[in-house]
């Protein structure tokens, strides 16, 4: 069929134009139909293979549409995420202003059209990136991802979101430039721009060959790493997601970082460095997450933490681990999307996202509360919920490959997830102290989108076979064995126990207390010390690094301004005599040089 050779992004890009020119009901039908049709087409019509290829500059082969099991899985996922996202955002344009209620810094304005169009282009770019068979195409979509998604931040229409969006754009454009540079270096060495495996040994526990990939490989790793939120490059996630619109955050959480995970899975499977980077990512955000008050920012930290599991899985590089990483990405888009939707719903109805401003909403928003709890249980990896069947693959792979310390860190991080995402998010928004807010349930489309997400979380958890069948590598894995279920239940029960104990003993878990719950399970008295010193130290080092980098940038800029500014020697208008003097100087210099 014709459609099978049409790259998936094309439908979205054409659709975006159509969405831009419609309003009201036709637009609503369009935004739902495009991901639905695209997804069905991908599912039924597209087989693995190279579907579109042409020559570029005579010597390179550009492949805008390459499908294999890995890219197809992400393709299905992105269509699903786009569908849920648009369903969630469907009420926009009914005169509501996205997230404008009660926020002082908002100037209002109906931004629905802008958001729909940019979200459509954004989803299309993500699809373009995962089906890109070469670095040029990947680069184009890599940059488009940033350019299209930034409008989801700017649509908040506030000074702060503008500044944040701009920083977000710069970081991602830099990542794109690095990607291109790395690709050029690699192309120069190998003579090919095909996007294949770059470094690391797949399916073995041997040392990954990152060194062997040369500087090109390193630069690519950094480029991917920036988008994936590697430590020190993670700030764009926690900064921009809370600043985006309620519906924008749902899209943002689904695509950009998952494209990076895909790129890492394809390029760097089995690269040892990723194990440690990933592990660091799983636990350092926890310290920030427990201190953070803005619940959507907490989700941002939780995002980094979840990506950490995926990155570590990719680094371990066995079939089980890579499958686990990819499956976890799949599950994460759904449950993280669900949590962002729930927080978005709260924000839409109350205008607030701060833990201290919310509470007691379960009385008037019971459905949202329930759905949020499902998402929280999924992310905490309760048995019969999605993360249980995906994250466990990574953890088991870590044990199998004898990475015991890594495994311990991941276990600690899992407890952290339960605390900051599993308990903190629903507890502070829907229970805790009664804030007195009596907000209604969000619009129906939001509830339906959240319900679908919640059902998927449970379905994946209960019937993991279907998801496993889609995974890129052959493996034999059963999530529901006694040990795993018991370990996980222990972890969760003691976590809950700690929480309840604190509640009953009247030690009300305010922001800082809440930290201690999960830590107590694993470390008992180590926890307060850990949080204070490690958390503090991490924060201090982070602040120091950032301050010194800023200072350096500042002084460089100052020097540059001195020489290059409007009155600097490099920029001012020179008298004619001095110009001629330069000519004479150059002539003499050349003559001396030559004679």
């Amino acid at each position: 069929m014709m459609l099978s050779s049409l790259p998936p992004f094309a439908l979205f890009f054409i659709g975006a134009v159509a969405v831009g020119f419609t309003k009201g009901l036709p637009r609503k039908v369009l935004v739902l139909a495009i991901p639905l049709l695209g997804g069905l087409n991908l599912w039924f019509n597209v087989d693995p293979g190279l579907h579109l290829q042409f020559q570029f500059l005579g010597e390179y082969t550009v492949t805008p549409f390459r499908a294999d099991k890995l890219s197809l899985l992400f393709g299905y996922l992105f269509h699903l995420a786009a569908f849920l996202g648009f369903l969630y955002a469907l009420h926009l344009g009914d005169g509501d202003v996205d997230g404008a209620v009660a926020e002082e810094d908002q100037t209002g304005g109906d931004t629905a059209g802008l958001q729909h169009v940019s979200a459509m282009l954004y989803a299309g770019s993500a699809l373009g990136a995962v089906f890109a068979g070469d670095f040029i195409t990947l680069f184009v979509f890599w940059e488009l991802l940033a350019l299209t998604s930034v409008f989801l931040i700017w649509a908040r229409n506030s000074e702060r979101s503008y500044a944040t969006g701009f920083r977000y754009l710069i970081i991602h454009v830099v990542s794109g430039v690095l990607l291109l540079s790395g690709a050029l270096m690699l192309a120069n060495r190998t003579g090919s721009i095909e996007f294949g495996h770059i470094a690391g040994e797949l399916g073995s526990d041997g040392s990954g060959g990152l060194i062997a990939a040369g500087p090109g490989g390193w630069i690519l790793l950094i480029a991917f790493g920036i988008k994936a939120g590697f430590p020190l490059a993670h700030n764009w996630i926690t900064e921009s997601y809370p600043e985006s619109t309620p519906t924008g955050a749902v899209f943002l959480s689904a695509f950009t970082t998952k494209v990076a995970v895909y790129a890492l899975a394809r390029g760097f499977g089995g690269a040892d460095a990723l194990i440690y980077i990933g592990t660091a990512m799983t636990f350092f955000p926890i310290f920030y997450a427990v201190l953070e008050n803005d619940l959507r920012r907490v989700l941002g930290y939780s995002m980094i933490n979840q990506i950490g599991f995926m990155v570590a899985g990719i680094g371990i590089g066995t079939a089980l681990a890579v499958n686990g990483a990819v499956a976890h990405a799949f599950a994460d888009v759904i449950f993280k999307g669900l949590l962002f939707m729930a927080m978005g719903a709260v924000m839409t109805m109350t205008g607030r996202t701060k833990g201290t401003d919310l509470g007691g909403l379960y009385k008037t928003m019971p459905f949202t509360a329930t759905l949020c709890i499902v998402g929280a249980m999924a992310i905490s990896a309760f048995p019969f919920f999605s993360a249980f069947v995906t994250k466990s693959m990574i953890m088991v792979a870590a044990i199998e490959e004898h990475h015991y310390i890594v495994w311990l860190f991941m276990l600690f991080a899992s407890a952290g997830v339960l605390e900051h995402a599993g308990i903190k998010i629903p507890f502070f928004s829907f229970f805790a102290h009664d804030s007195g807010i009596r907000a209604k349930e969000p619009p129906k489309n939001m509830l339906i989108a959240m319900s679908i997400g919640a059902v998927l979380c449970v379905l994946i958890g209960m019937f993991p076979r279907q998801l496993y069948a889609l995974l890129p590598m052959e493996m034999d894995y059963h999530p529901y064995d006694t040990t795993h279920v018991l370990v996980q239940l222990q972890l969760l029960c003691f976590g809950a126990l700690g929480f309840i104990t604190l509640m009953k003993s009247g030690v009300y878990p305010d922001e800082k207390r809440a930290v201690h719950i999960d830590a107590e399970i694993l470390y008992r008295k180590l926890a307060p010390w850990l949080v204070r010193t490690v958390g503090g130290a991490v924060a201090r080092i982070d602040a120091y690094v950032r301050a010194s980098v800023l200072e350096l940038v500042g002084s460089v800029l100052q020097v540059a301004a001195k020489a290059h500014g409007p009155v600097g020697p490099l920029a001012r208008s020179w008298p004619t005599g001095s110009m001629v003097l330069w000519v004479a100087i150059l002539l003499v210099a050349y003559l001396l040089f030559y004679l």
Partner: protein
Amino acid sequence: MSHHLPVLLVVIPLVAAPFAALVNRPRVSWAIALGSAWWAFLAAFALLRQVMADGPIHYALGDWAAPYGIEYVVDPANAWVLLIVGMIAAVVTPYALLSIEREVPDARIPLFYAAFILCMTGLLGIAITGDVFNVFVFLEISSLSAYALIALGRDRRALTASYQYLIMGSVGATFIVIGIGLLYVMTGTLNMADLAQILPELEPNRTIPVAFTFLTVGITLKLALFPLHLWLPNAYTYAPSVVTAFIASTATKVAVYLLLRFFFTIFGASFSFGEMQLDKVLMPLALVAILTMSIVAIYQDNVKRLLAYSSVAQIGYMVLGISLASALGLTAGILHLFNHALMKGALFMAMGCVMYRVGSVRIERMNGLARAMPWTMAAFVAGGLSIIGVPLTVGFISKWYLIQAALEQGLWPVAVVVLVGSLLAVVYVWKVVEVAYFRDLDADADIQEAPLSMLIATWALVLANFWFGIDASATTGVARRAAEVLLGVGS
């Protein structure tokens, strides 16, 4: 007729120029300029096709045989430059009609078009001739008319800018003629092919390196290579918009062509880059130009001036490609001649539209301008994307080849500088975008979109930016052939 095409290409505009001044009716003068420009464009295109198909064309003026008479030689390298000059002139002239009526007093318009045609003629002549003294003659024709064109700018500073350009241009031309004179003394010939044959056979002596030096300084001054670019920013800033668009896209390109012709064809690559180590001089200057001039551009408040500094940086890219002295580097440099003409032409023309409606191109006057002049500002953004080097634009093709050429020789730092230059370009393009798209339009401003004729011409160049960015096979094919000719491989 087609046999005489090389000489007609130059003679027809040369003869048309006095008529443009004599009829003394603005619109008629314009029509004459339009005819000349399109003639040059079509003739150059025909020549390029002929050269690509059948090899170099030799045309002896007045049937005087080569070494004694003046000879016109067309090969892929200069046919390419002829096409650039013709194309830009053909696009700029329709645009000029309204823009010039706004920016130049009526009485001077016929003179303006006469000077414009002469300037184009001079540039075509420099490119087509195979005789070094003839180069000097045409250089003076184009330069003198360019001084006059710049002096016609509305701003009174145009006069000083033109005066400075006059002094500097004359110094450059003098250096070139001194170099040519020294060559003549040593070889007794002015014919390029003849020079190329005799020079390697000469005993080692000091005169040739001195001639080489004078030519180097003279030509790098004409093409505004850092630090001899000082005449350029003011000249571009204060000249009428049309003049800036035309000269920025053609004059420096022709000077780059002279550099190629002298150092590759006449002196030979092995002499220029082997014995004289020209690359050791050109490359550092090119790199400094790319970095410092891009940074200077960021600090400018006058957008034409910003683009002028960006041009100096872009010239750095061309010279950088040439200084690599490899087939790939040369291809990149020659490709960028064409590509930069497209992008800078589009950008300066967009600014001409702004000048037409707003009366200023200072950045503080552009608040929210994208709302009032959406097509103009979209053209600016598109040109800006090209200058940054975004894929699907010609800028990407240039940079791709340039980086490949640098990496081919293991020059990582050079590749890094090229990329940093792109990032700096993001900043200075963004500076305009931010003001035009993210600020509110001044409430009392009553600004309309630019006239259709100006928009169409601007967008023709913008679309060319994308056309040749998507299908670069034609441009890279010619550039590669030109590089081969200059390096003396192939035909």
